[in-house]
Structure formats: structure tokens, C-alpha cells
């Protein structure tokens, strides 16, 4: 029998999820490894039970009825259909709860608040010197446990960085706690895992796992106002303010202090723009500014299709200097 081509493509597509930035089999976090440790016994057990049930079914259909079958049948239903599932499910529940507790109760070295918004992520690091505001990219120190305080400002979202750990709903008016302990450096993908409106599929983020020293340096830099080289770009900054960007965005060190949209103080230090959507680049920034609603339908930010090319150059250069 020949399989139609699209089924093969679908299978290949499915396998592609098993590797890379979004794979929970990547083993990039201690919590993801705990989940992986659960997964393999679950998988083996499920396959064994399924095979046994199928074998029983085949035997049952092939046998001719005999007088003694009634008693054997009742025993099979009692033990196989009642006792065994109860024991298995109870065991699964207990190991699941134990794993959940192990994942949530690690003592943490750092607290990060992640506040989901339609359709981006507000990220706030707690440091002894105060809060450090960022957005759409979460940086974590390697080997340290970070406590994530997850909440939402509008509808229910769900935080999921599969390579690092579990998935947890973000509920308005409630703070859910989750820990992540990365064990591999790199850029890992994350996404909203609960349908939250028009741009749900484009509500992504990146988790950047860094060596602890590098992380410490980065956090200090992130807490600083915008780069002096950017602040010296008078024309770009002035256009940024003229176009009204400051009504929603903050660039610390300027009069832009809007809180409705992502903090842009260190935009150019991030890997992606538009909430994990496009790689940070000059061309993508231009496209984002002029075709915002095409790139991300439903996005709250208005498009600026009529911006004069020279102004666009200046604003893009200014934004790319926000390192």
C-alpha cells in the first residue's frame, strides 16, 4: 500500500517538533527533564496496556462460548476493568502530583514576573535594587532556579517554554507560580498555549539561557536607561515622539514613558520583535512599523503605512541603536 504524500509530510512535520527550540525532549531544563522522566514510563505502560487489551479482545472474539465463561468474564471485568485501572490511575496521579510539587517548590534564586497581555509579554525582574522592566524575551541564568510569577492583564493565556518546563495558565486576577531551572544555554522558544484572541498564534517569546556571570552583567545593562548613542540620535528620537510612540512605549532616559505596550529601552538587545514574531533586523523593523496589522492581524498597535521613507529610516536607526 502506498501512503499519500501529504501523510508523509504530516509525519515529518510532527517529528520536527521533537527537536529544536520548542522541544520538551531537548532536555534544556530540570523541570522539562522531570516531565520527560514521567513521559517514558507513561509511554511504555500505555503501549503495554493497549497491547494487552488488544490481545484479550482478539482472544475473546475468537473463542466459542462455553458454560464456564460467565465466571471468567466477571473476574476479568472486576480485575482488568476495575481494580487495575484504579491502581494505575492512582499511581499516575500520585507520581504526577509529586512531579508537580518537585517542579513548583524548588527554592529560587531569582523572581521574574511575567504578565500576559493581548498579545505580548510584560517581563519584570526583581532585583535588590528594584524592578527591571523588559518584554517578550526572558533571560535566565544557567543552573539557577528562577521563580516565575505568572498572571494576565486581560484574558486567560498560558505560559509554555516546552524545552524548559511545564505549561501553566495565566489567569487575570491570580498569580500562578512556576519554576524553571535551565541546564543548557541557548535560545529556546516559548508561546501562548491557551487561545486568547485574534493574534494568539503570534504571541510568542524567547527564553535566553545564559551563563550566570553573563546573566548578571546583562541584568545590570537591562536596568540602565537607553544607550547614550541612541539618545544622541536627536532626529530619530524626536520622530519617535512625534509619531506618538511614547503614548504606549517606554524608552527610559527619554520622555517616552507609555506603559500600554512593550518597554523598548533595550529593544535592539533582544533577538526578535513583535512578541517573538520576526527576527530583529532593520528590514523587519521597517516592515513591522509600516505593515503592523498585516504581520500580526489583530495587534493593538496601529500601522504607520504613510510614514515618509526618510522618517522611517531615522526611526529604525534609532530603534536599532537601543541596545
Amino acid at each position, binding site marked *: 500500500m502506498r501512503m499519500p504524500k501529504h501523510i508523509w509530510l504530516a509525519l515529518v512535520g510532527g517529528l520536527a517538533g521533537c527537536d529544536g527550540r520548542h522541544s520538551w525532549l531537548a532536555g534544556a531544563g530540570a523541570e522539562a527533564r522531570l516531565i520527560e522522566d514521567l513521559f517514558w514510563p507513561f509511554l511504555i505502560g500505555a503501549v503495554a496496556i493497549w497491547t494487552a487489551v488488544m490481545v484479550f479482545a482478539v482472544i475473546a472474539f475468537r473463542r466459542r462460548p462455553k458454560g464456564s465463561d460467565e465466571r471468567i468474564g466477571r473476574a476479568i471485568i472486576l480485575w482488568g476493568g476495575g481494580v487495575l485501572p484504579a491502581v494505575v490511575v492512582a499511581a499516575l496521579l500520585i507520581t504526577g502530583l509529586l512531579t508537580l510539587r518537585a517542579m513548583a517548590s524548588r527554592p529560587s534564586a531569582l523572581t521574574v514576573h511575567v504578565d500576559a497581555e493581548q498579545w505580548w509579554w510584560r517581563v519584570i525582574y526583581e532585583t535588590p535594587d528594584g524592578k527591571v522592566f523588559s518584554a517578550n524575551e526572558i533571560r535566565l541564568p544557567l543552573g539557577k532556579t528562577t521563580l516565575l510569577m505568572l498572571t494576565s492583564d486581560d484574558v486567560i493565556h498560558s505560559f509554555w517554554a516546552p524545552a524548559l518546563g511545564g505549561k501553566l495558565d495565566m489567569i487575570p486576577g491570580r498569580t500562578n507560580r512556576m519554576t524553571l531551572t535551565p541546564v543548557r544555554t541557548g535560545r529556546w522558544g516559548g508561546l501562548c498555549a491557551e487561545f486568547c484572541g485574534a493574534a494568539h498564534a503570534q504571541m510568542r517569546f524567547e527564553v535566553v539561557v545564559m551563563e550566570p556571570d553573563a546573566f548578571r552583567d546583562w541584568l545590570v545593562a537591562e536596568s540602565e536607561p537607553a544607550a547614550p548613542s541612541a539618545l544622541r540620535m536627536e532626529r530619530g528620537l524626536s520622530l519617535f*515622539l512625534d*509619531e*506618538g510612540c511614547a503614548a504606549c512605549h517606554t524608552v527610559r532616559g527619554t520622555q*517616552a514613558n*507609555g506603559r500600554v505596550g512593550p518597554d523598548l529601552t533595550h529593544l535592539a538587545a533582544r533577538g526578535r520583535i513583535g512578541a517573538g514574531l520576526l527576527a530583529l533586523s532593520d528590514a523587519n523593523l521597517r516592515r513591522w512599523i509600516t505593515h503592523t496589522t498585516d504581520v500580526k492581524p489583530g495587534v*493593538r498597535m*496601529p500601522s504607520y*503605512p*504613510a510614514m515618509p521613507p526618510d522618517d522611517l529610516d531615522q526611526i529604525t536607526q534609532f530603534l536599532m541603536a537601543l541596545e
Partner: protein
Amino acid sequence: MKLTWKLTWRRAVIALAVLALLALAAWRLAPYNVAASVGHLAPVRAFLHSYMKNAVEIRAAALDPPAWFDPDDPALVRLGAAHYATGCAPCHGAPGKVRSAVVTSMLPEPTQLGMVRNTPAEFYWLARHGLKYTGMPAWSGRGRDDEPWALAAFLSRYSTLGPDDYRRLAHGTEKARSDSAAADFADMAPDAGPHIEDCARCHGRDGLGREGTAPKLAGQSEAYLLGALDAYARDLRQSGFMEPVAVRLGEDLRREIARNYASMKPDIWQGRANGQGDAARGRILALNGDEHDEIPSCVACHGGAGQPPRTAEVPRIAGQDARWIRIWLRIWRDGPVPATPGAARMAAAARGLDDQAIDDLAAFYSSGPSAAATREQADR
């Protein structure tokens, strides 16, 4: 005698064919005369007129006037009167005005409204939707369902007005131009004078507005004024009041009028509050926006009292009247959103506003020159 007649397929088809031929002949030969010079046959006229009245009555009965509508509101009556002078008087006449013979030769002849006793909702419906086959147009500001209520208020007292009352309501206390001929549709004189009169009916001769139903223009930026006038003229921005005026100005006159208003430099804009909203809460909202309700800061673009707008394309709001601010914030939120290039910004900004926030912002921005000090304090 007994008539027997049997319906067969054959006969039915023949009958239908004959009917179709008759209909085609009636269409092609047009025996019913549509000439305005001839008029309707009396029974046809009676039927059409009573049908029209029924149609208006039944639709108006289903209308729910908005909560803010007060037929006795003097500002609303004056606004309606000012538009009546622009849009209605040329055909329907006005107290003390002689109608053009062109108009009185229309069929049906435009009703002289002094004899009409309609409910406000019926007047609204007629002004908003117009009447097919009569020459009565629909409201030219598409989606501006708020505007015709001003006419409803004015027309509700129209039958009681004498020439002086009318002139005072429509033109203000100063002397009106062209006292005789109301029909000035084709008035395209190169001189801006008469057109300034059109503006002054709602915006005041000093450009500082009348009761907040229309914005203050004196000292507003030229770029903004010209942009708004062009947008009305090109149907990018909707208003049944502004479009008829802006369209007939032509590009040069629009520029001239924008420059004229921009060059008037009143010392202050004294905003008129409307007794609603909390100015203190509005100030905080205008300065900081609201992170949780997705409301961006207003001052980032529009400035505040004592602080000019960020660019010339952005209108100055501080010192406008609360009534006008409220009308436009609701339009930006609920539509019809203008189709101008920058409009997406303001629509995005107004999306998160609720009625209370709109009233609070209107209260803050209309609190006039006194807001200057509070804003400087707020800047730390």
C-alpha cells in the same frame, strides 16, 4: 347560463405570456407620465403620501433617542438651526426667506415645515434617511447617527419661529448675510467672506465655538485645520454638518480659511465643562494613560493645558469644550473612524475608553487655563 372554464397548463402558459408582453409594453411605452410638470393623479398622490407617512411613522416609532438627547437643549437647537441654514433652507425655506422658483417647481414640492407636526424621532428619521423619489437626501455624514438629533431638536420648535428667532438661532446675534435668497447652492464666489459666514454659524465669529457643539478653531494649527477640512471634503471624515460646507469651498479656499483661523491668536481657550466627569481622574489618565485598560497617554501627542501638541498635524485639545471632546472621543471609539492616514493611531488610543473615562478626559481637557498649573506640577 353557466360559465365553465378549465385551467390547463396550456392556458396558464398563454396567460402568463400575455401578461409578460403587457408588462413589457407598459415598461417600454411608459403610459404613466413621470413629468414633474404634470403631477400625480389625485388617488396616486394620496396613496403615495399616506404610504410615506406610514413608513416614517412606523420606523420612527422603533427609534430610541440617545440618552443625551434633549429637544429643549438650546445648544442642540442652535446647532440644528445652523445646519438647517446650510443644508435644508435652500429647499424647505426658512422664516423670512423667499424660496427659489426652481425649488418650488420640484415634485413633490419640498414641504414648508412650519405646518408639519412630527415627533422628534420622525424628524430625525427623515433627516437621517431621506426619502426616495422626492429629492430629499439622506444624511451626508455616513454613520454619524448622532448629528441629525440636532435637527430633530430644532425642527420640533420650528413652527413657532419668526424671522428674527430663526436668524438669531441660525446665525447668532450678528447680522446675517444674504437676507433674501436662501438658495445659494452654487455660490462659488472666489471671495472667502460668505464662506467664513458658513463657518461662523457653528464655530462662532471669533472662532471660539458656540456652546461646545462645534470645536474652537481660532489658534488651532493650520496643518490640522487644513487636514480636517480636506478630509471632510474628500469624504474621509464623516459629518453631515461639515461635508456640505467643506466640499463647496474648493482647495484654495480651504487653505485660506485654515490659515485665517490659525492666524487668530486668542489669549486663552476657556473650555466649557458639561458637569460630567472627574477632571482629577481625567488628568491622571491624560498624563499616564492606563496600562490595564489599554489607554495610552493623551499628552504624548496632544499636549496638555500649557503644553502645545507634539506636532502641527495633531490638534490642540486643552481648552476645548467638554461637549465636543465627548462627541469626538465617542466617534473615535465607536466609529465612524475617519479614513485619514493617521486615524488608526487615534482609533487605537480610544479603543480602551469607557464612557466614564471619556467624561473624565473631557472634564480635564475642558478645565481650561487652570489646568496649566496642575500639569506643570504633575511633571514633577
